[in-house]
């Protein structure tokens, strides 16, 4: 018990003694755990949204629809071989839906108030249909901004919105299947007067009671009908469609669940790409930041091991102290990361749910909790293992005498720097002392800028979308929101990395900076040198990130996702120049404070 208390006390003291480093370590691991949590939660929520919707909404295997004249053909289908369950036929009518200020084409499906076993739309807000009440498909409701409790009119008749629901019998708005005789057109609408009369433009989907649907029209013959079928073997739907579609020379419009899946997941794939892209980039940045921070602490830890051994600590005790210190930070970071990730994820999954019409909500699973905690603890163990083993292997005197890692010599850079003004001379020499740290800094900035490049491409792509019909304005706004969230997280982590790297450089160069001051460098010159040692690699990273990094990242994403990069608008040269300039300015601002603190440290204390 006494030993455990001693270990905890020593670990706590060391953390408190180096509060800034402990805070940066916490932030770096926290960023990684938050990112990981977000990625895992979003993967679960958006990984297979159609499947979750299909399960939640009792999705049909085949959807068939006819005009009223062919209703008997639907009724025949009910008894076709392979059909195990069905719902319908339900009447469908085209109508104009009016909300405050907008008018939209809709397909109105008449449903029973009672629940059915095939295609029972999943109500995500409000309740299911009743007389005088309309339920609006969730993605359509988002698009036209109607909510439960609002009043709308259908062909001039007033209804109250009683619910919002998702269905697996039709792709979500604006990719809806067409059930009505008049026909539908999705996408950009050019009103050139040549369109057939009554053609529906980007129709949404709403549900009423069957009686209400029939009351919308005085001509029962204008109604269409839709039938939902469940088959004994859902994998054989195409065989069923082929066998039952083509009688009497007039093919019966039928859609298999696989067709609907293809249409629905086109949107889902886009959202997933967006979400996973951010996770990849953030993961890379987190690794770069942690590498620098852990590497920077190793020298201190080695000396500390020597001190503990000198006062009688066994190798086991010193390893336990080191491990306890990192585990404490890792556990706090894991818990905070899980909480922040879980709280932030709904912001993104809500948009994802709207996009794919999924009712799936983001939630923490035990596997996510386990994985995030394991990664955080893994970081702690990896960070502890090297100094602990090094300390255990070295003699006590050797560990005590262990100075900071010897700097590396980069002869050509030292020679070049002699020709530069003092701040740049010192900056290049500071950078040359730790080439691996510089490489990590360059890589981190390049990853960030590459990410921003891709975000610019996506933003430009979304800017072109309203009017093309692929996304509605509401969906574009939602996607832009998701992009903004990712951008903020990406830039935050990049900023943390920049501060961590600068502070690590400041600590690592305490002695060299003090010596330069003792030899006549001014505080301003050493401050500028410490900042420039970060800014110069940042400039290189920004240039590499803008080109070719961003282009390669975008091409890679296209290759992986099978996207058509040819449709994308790549950033203009002025945008790339602005991006590089903004990056350099941001890094300059971020490094200014730690560099200022490092450049003005008392000389005598460091020497």
């Amino acid at each position, binding site marked *: 018990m006494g030993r455990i208390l001693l270990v905890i006390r020593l670990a706590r003291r060391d953390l408190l003694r180096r509060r800034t480093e402990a805070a940066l370590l916490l932030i770096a691991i926290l960023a990684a755990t938050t990112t990981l949590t977000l990625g895992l939660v979003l993967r679960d929520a958006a990984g297979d949204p159609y499947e979750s919707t299909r399960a939640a909404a009792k999705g049909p295997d085949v959807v068939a629809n006819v005009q009223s004249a062919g209703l008997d053909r639907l009724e025949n289908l009910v008894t076709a071989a392979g059909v195990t369950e069905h719902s319908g036929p339900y009447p469908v009518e085209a109508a104009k839906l009016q909300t405050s200020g907008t008018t939209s084409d809709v397909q109105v499906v008449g449903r029973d108030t009672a629940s059915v076993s095939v295609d029972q739309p999943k109500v995500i807000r409000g309740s299911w249909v009743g007389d005088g009440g309309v339920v609006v498909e969730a993605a359509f409701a988002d698009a036209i901004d109607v909510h439960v409790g609002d009043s709308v009119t259908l062909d001039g008749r007033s209804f109250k919105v009683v619910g919002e629901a998702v269905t697996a019998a039709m792709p979500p708005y604006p990719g809806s299947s067409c059930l009505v005789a008049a026909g539908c057109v999705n996408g950009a609408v050019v009103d050139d007067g040549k369109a057939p009369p009554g053609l529906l433009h980007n129709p949404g989907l709403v549900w009423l009671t069957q009686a209400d649907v029939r009351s919308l029209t005085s001509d029962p013959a204008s109604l269409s009908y839709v039938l939902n079928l469940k088959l004994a073997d859902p994998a054989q739907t195409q065989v069923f469609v082929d066998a039952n579609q083509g009688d009497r020379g007039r093919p019966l419009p039928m859609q298999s669940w696989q067709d609907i899946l293809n249409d629905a997941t086109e949107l889902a794939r886009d959202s997933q790409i967006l979400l996973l892209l951010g996770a990849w980039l953030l993961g890379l940045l987190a690794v770069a930041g942690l590498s620098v921070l852990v590497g920077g602490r190793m020298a201190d830890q080695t000396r500390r091991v020597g001190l503990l051994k000198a006062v009688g600590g066994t190798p086991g005790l010193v390893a336990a102290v080191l491990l306890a210190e990192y585990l404490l930070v890792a556990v706090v970071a894991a818990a905070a990361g899980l909480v922040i990730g879980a709280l932030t994820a709904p912001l993104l999954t809500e948009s994802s749910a709207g996009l794919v019409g999924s009712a799936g909500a983001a939630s923490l699973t035990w596997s996510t909790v386990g994985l995030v905690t394991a990664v955080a603890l893994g970081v702690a163990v990896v960070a502890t293992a090297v100094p602990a083993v090094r300390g255990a292997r070295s003699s006590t005197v050797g560990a005590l005498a262990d100075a900071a890692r010897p700097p590396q*010599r980069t002869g050509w850079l*030292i020679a070049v720097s*002699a020709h530069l003004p003092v701040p740049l001379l010192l900056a290049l*020499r500071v950078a040359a002392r730790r080439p691996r740290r510089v490489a990590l800094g360059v890589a981190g900035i390049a990853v960030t800028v590459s990410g921003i490049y891709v975000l610019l491409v996506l933003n430009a792509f979304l800017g072109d979308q309203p009017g093309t019909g692929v996304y509605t304005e509401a969906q574009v706004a939602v996607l832009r929101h998701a992009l903004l969230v990712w951008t903020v997280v990406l830039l935050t982590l990049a900023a943390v990395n920049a501060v961590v790297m600068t502070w690590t450089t400041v600590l690592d160069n305490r002695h060299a900076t003090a010596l330069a001051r003792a*030899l006549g*460098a*001014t*505080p301003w010159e050493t401050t500028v040198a410490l900042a420039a040692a970060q800014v110069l690699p940042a400039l290189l990273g920004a240039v590499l990130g803008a080109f070719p990094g961003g282009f390669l990242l975008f091409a890679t994403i296209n290759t992986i996702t099978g996207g058509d990069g040819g449709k994308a608008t790549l950033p203009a040269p002025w945008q790339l120049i602005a991006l590089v300039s903004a990056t350099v300015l941001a890094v300059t601002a971020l490094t200014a404070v730690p560099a200022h603190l490092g450049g003005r440290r008392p*000389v005598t204390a460091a020497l």
Partner: protein
Amino acid sequence: MGNAAATPVLSARGLRKEYGKGEGLVRAVGGVDLDVGAGETVAIMGPSGCGKSTLLHLLGGLDRPSGGEVLLNGRRIDNTSENALARMRRTDVSYVFQSFHLMEELTAVENVELSALLAGRSPQAARRRAEELLDRLGLVGRSRFLPSALSGGQRQRVAVARALSNEPLVVLADEPTGNLDSAATLDVLHLFKDLHESGQTLVIVTHDARIAATADRMFSMRDGVLVDETRPTGAPGRLGALIGLED
């Protein structure tokens, strides 16, 4: 305590340095008066912790005094800006440290030329001067060596060469033989004797009586104050012979 040298290059008046407050107050330097004349070598001796190094830091503007004045060539430096002090250290005052404080990643010649580069000399001039100094200090053939490949005595020679590269008014040496073995100590003793004879103004903090014996004046320091002054220069030949510096 002081000695009015003919033309003081470096002076201290009532110089104090205190740390902490109240009961925790520590008086590292407690009112020192000192004049160092041009070309003079002054040694300050005393036990560890008596304030010798702090005094040296105050004299060279590496640290700020709590009270009193420091004058270099008659100009106060204790109340000037950090930038002005830095510029002063480029040309007027330079240090030799006990732990050498060489940049580990720089070769001997690169370490020596660093001061000149910081002072704004051209790379060619700085390199030329560094090579000359290394030759003069007996490090021919060692100029491209990293500090880790040099002996303790050689490293201290590099540090002295660096201190001389801008031809300073005063060189302040803090325990220059403190980290050296006997042979290297003798090596550095010779070096300081040469510097003394060349007219370089030197202030040396040491607890090595042999190096103090090379000085024109020697002060003893106790508890932050100078308590005693002696003049070994009255018999330089005998002292030199005693410590093995005379041929």
